[in-house]
């Protein structure tokens, strides 16, 4: 058995890079240091592997690439979507393809943390890399997120328990507060749990900003939380040395969306008049931060980018995938390393099954089931190396640990681009 060290896990935005993977031939035998989600990702690398096919009929990868190139070069308004569970070189190629064919390109953030991105575009953010939290944070607030289940090693690697340079006793030097609409398993790690009424995040956060400014509120509670509790939370935030607030989809995908996040960002910003306070989104299924990063450096925008006029345009609502599909505007779709069909609202998902849809994925999914063309690929982070971004935008190299019979996402996209290019040239 061969041992491979310092392996990066692409499952979530914690992007642990300390895994030990034991392999024999093309099989992973054992994984150490990973959480339950990471371990399952590696150990099940041979399960549900996709099969190359066109209209349900098994065929060669080459034929699938040719069919994809044909669909995309014929399309008038193609959509490229997904790109979370792959690495950055494939993401680069996907944007190059979008530029070439004048596609809309969008990522899984579109139905996840895009309101966070919009909120940051509006008011900015006071944030830091995760090591700053590890080395300094003496107060941690988790708001509308559940790291214990969604980002299992966040607590032990970065936030709650690690011993840091300025917090040498680890958890003993920190206070942890969880704010959520229900008591999740994350509450076990917290010194205090504050339960708020569903849908009241904006109200609670705005009330806190008012209290911070010295306003007296003529109510006894906001969002189900007594004013005295909010005041004591504020006092903790004002008097800590380094406060770190983390938010999740509890804010981004409940009523108010980016307004909720803005309220939190503004509270964090206001708190900097008293002490150091940072706020960070708990991002990341897979390498979703990677696609936002590469898309931003290549086009200026992090998601919902349209290239049909020959240059990048950005407009969530107009160019975000769910909207494009629900309005039946896209006439072909390329879904890469994501399960659009399973995650989209019905009207959008249904349109995907109406138009020619190409799925590039290591695994079978709801999307591959309805796709016209299915191209299986080597799974990034297991059978394809490259680059990934952690939730705090730190780049981490990604290793390959076992071979796959299939080409990587990057390779498949490269070959599609070559074919599309020659088709477009022949047409002119």
């Amino acid at each position, binding site marked *: 058995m061969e041992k491979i*060290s*310092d392996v*990066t896990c692409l499952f979530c935005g914690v992007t642990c*890079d*300390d895994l030990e993977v034991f392999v024999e031939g093309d099989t992973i035998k054992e994984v150490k240091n990973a959480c339950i989600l990471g371990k399952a990702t590696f150990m099940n690398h041979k399960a549900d592997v996709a099969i190359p096919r066109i209209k349900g009929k098994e065929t060669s990868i080459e034929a699938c690439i040719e069919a994809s190139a044909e669909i995309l070069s014929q399309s008038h308004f193609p959509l490229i979507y997904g790109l979370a569970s792959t690495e*950055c070189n494939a993401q*680069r190629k996907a944007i190059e393809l979008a*530029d*070439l064919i004048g596609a809309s390109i969008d990522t899984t953030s579109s139905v996840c943390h895009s309101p966070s991105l919009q909120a*940051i*575009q*509006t*008011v*900015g*953010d*006071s*944030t*830091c*890399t*995760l*090591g*700053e939290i*590890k*080395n*300094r944070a003496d107060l941690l607030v988790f708001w509308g997120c559940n790291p214990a289940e969604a980002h299992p090693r966040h607590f032990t*690697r*970065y936030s709650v328990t690690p*011993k840091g*340079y*300025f917090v040498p006793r680890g958890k003993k030097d920190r206070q942890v507060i969880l704010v959520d609409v229900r008591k999740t398993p994350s509450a076990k790690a917290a010194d205090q749990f504050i339960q708020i009424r569903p849908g009241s995040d904006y109200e609670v956060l705005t009330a806190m900003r008012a209290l911070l400014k010295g306003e007296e509120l003529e109510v006894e509670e906001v969002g189900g939380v007594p004013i005295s509790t909010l005041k004591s939370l504020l006092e903790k935030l004002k008097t800590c*040395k*380094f406060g770190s607030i983390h938010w999740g989809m509890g804010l981004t995908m409940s009523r108010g969306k980016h307004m909720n996040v803005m309220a939190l960002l503004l509270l964090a*910003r206001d708190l*900097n008049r008293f*002490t*150091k306070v*940072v706020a960070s989104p708990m991002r990341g299924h897979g390498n979703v931060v990677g696609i*936002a*990063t590469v898309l*931003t*450096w*290549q*086009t*200026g*925008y992090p998601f919902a980018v349209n*290239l049909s*006029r*020959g*240059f*990048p*345009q*950005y407009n969530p609502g107009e160019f975000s995938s769910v909207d494009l599909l629900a309005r039946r505007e896209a006439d072909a779709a390329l879904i890469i390393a994501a399960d659009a069909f399973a995650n989209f609202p019905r009207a959008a998902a249904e349109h995907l099954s109406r138009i020619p849809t190409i799925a590039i994925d290591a695994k079978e999914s709801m999307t591959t089931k309805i796709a016209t063309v299915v191209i299986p690929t080597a799974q990034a982070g297991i059978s394809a190396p490259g*680059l990934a*971004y952690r939730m*705090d*935008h*730190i*780049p*981490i*190299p990604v290793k390959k640990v076992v071979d796959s019979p299939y080409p990587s996402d990057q390779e498949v996209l490269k070959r599609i681009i070559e074919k599309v290019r020659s088709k477009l040239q022949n047409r002119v």
Partner: protein
Amino acid sequence: MLKIINGEVYDPLNGINGGIKEICIRDGKIVDEVPNTAKIIDASNLVVMPGGIDIHSHISGLKVNAGRGLRPEDHRRMVIPKTRITRSGTGYTIPSTFATGYLYTKLGYTTVMEAAVPPIGARHTHEELNDTPMIDKGCYIVLGNNEFILRYLQKGEYEKARDYTAWLLNATKGYAIKIVNPGGVENWKYGQDVSGLDDKVNHFDVTPRQILTALAQINQDLHLPHGVHIHCNNLGVPGNYRTTLETLHALEGKRVHLTHVQFHSYGGENWSGFASKAPEIAEYLNQHPHATIDVGQIIFGDTTTMTADGPWQYRLHKISEKKWYNSDVELESGCGIVPYVYKEKNFVNAIQWAIGLELFLLIKNPWQVFMSTDHPNGGPFIFYPYIIRLLMDKNFRDEMTKRVHKRVLKDTVLPHITREYSLYEIAIITRAGPAKALGLTHKGHLGVGADADIVLYPKLENKEEMFERPVYVLKEGEVILQEGQILKDWTGKTIFVELPENKAFQNEIRDDFEKYYTVEFSNYPTGLETFARYESVKVSI
């Protein structure tokens, strides 16, 4: 093979000042002669210069990309459509990567140095630079608030600080040492700053002065090709010229480059007393050839300010009330981003504008002062031709001086300066000088052996038009731009230093590294496989 004939050549490193001279090119380099079969470019009525070299620009990295992410409204002001050869992109103050390469090429710039890279973000910077076509590039690694360095200095372990620096430059594939607000950024991590060279850095019991002198010494002892590249303490603060002069005094005898000195040449005790101290700074530089500077000229209009100087950016956010992005970088650095609008009729902005020009015009030796807007902090680099016109055309400068806030006429010496730059001097401050200061011996000139990075400008009376319309740009002897059209999507090289290392010492770095970082030691260095093309500059000690 190629021969450029009949051109009026400006090649200051070889003392050529406007003479008609043939330039021969073979295999990407300039050579003595080429056979008669060589292709010929007739440069009659054209000015021939080495490709431009930007010694200080923020074009790539965590901070730059965070800036792009923060400002969708900025990108709508300039869109760059794809062509059959080039990729699409957006401007305006923080262009996308492809656009950055094309826009620099359209000005005749062929080499650009990214000025501030936190080591943990080096991999990101290099990945972005791979997607920045046309130009050669390199990056400076920020060290002035690095907690390894602070700890070594606290314990008086100079040799360890030196060996760590060598390891880090190799690991990050950096080109030079950068210092940003030494000590201040570390203090900012708990919401504070330093106010001068002798303040204490929290928890480390060292001073900015100690950091500056140690890193300048390390720079010297490692024989790095560029001097230590410094963004002084107290950027933007009225009265900060004293800190700037103290910094220069403290580093006398060392090779030093102070960057965006316009932002560090302010008099007055508060904003209402804000005044130019450019004459004092220029006077010092005129007496002390050990130092070079770039200016950081401001351009009126909207821009995006971004720097590792977190505490200053928080102050600017409070002054401007614009949105504020901050990201502190573990053990290493910080980052702050704030949009800002420089206004002609705002007296502080107008005086800032005048200070930049005064520095250009009062520093007598053009080999000591280089073109920069500290892109995009003072304004986008695409305005370099406008600055060139201000320097070469006294009448144009006077018109502008009358247009801006009246205190420029009243309170600065700018209106009384009659100097006009010559083409030869422009060639120094935009290519020959930066090449020399960077130790890039094969760039910035047209002598035999140099990289054939060459630009041909039209000879026009209006110097702004002249410098924004190169007729040809050549990279390694290939014509990559002609008459404003990009002909090749060229892949430039990334340039970095390669230093001898104390291998035994790596284990000690590793121990501390594993305790406090959040990435694995083996995943931290950027390997050669990252680069599309590279050139390593071997440095022997």
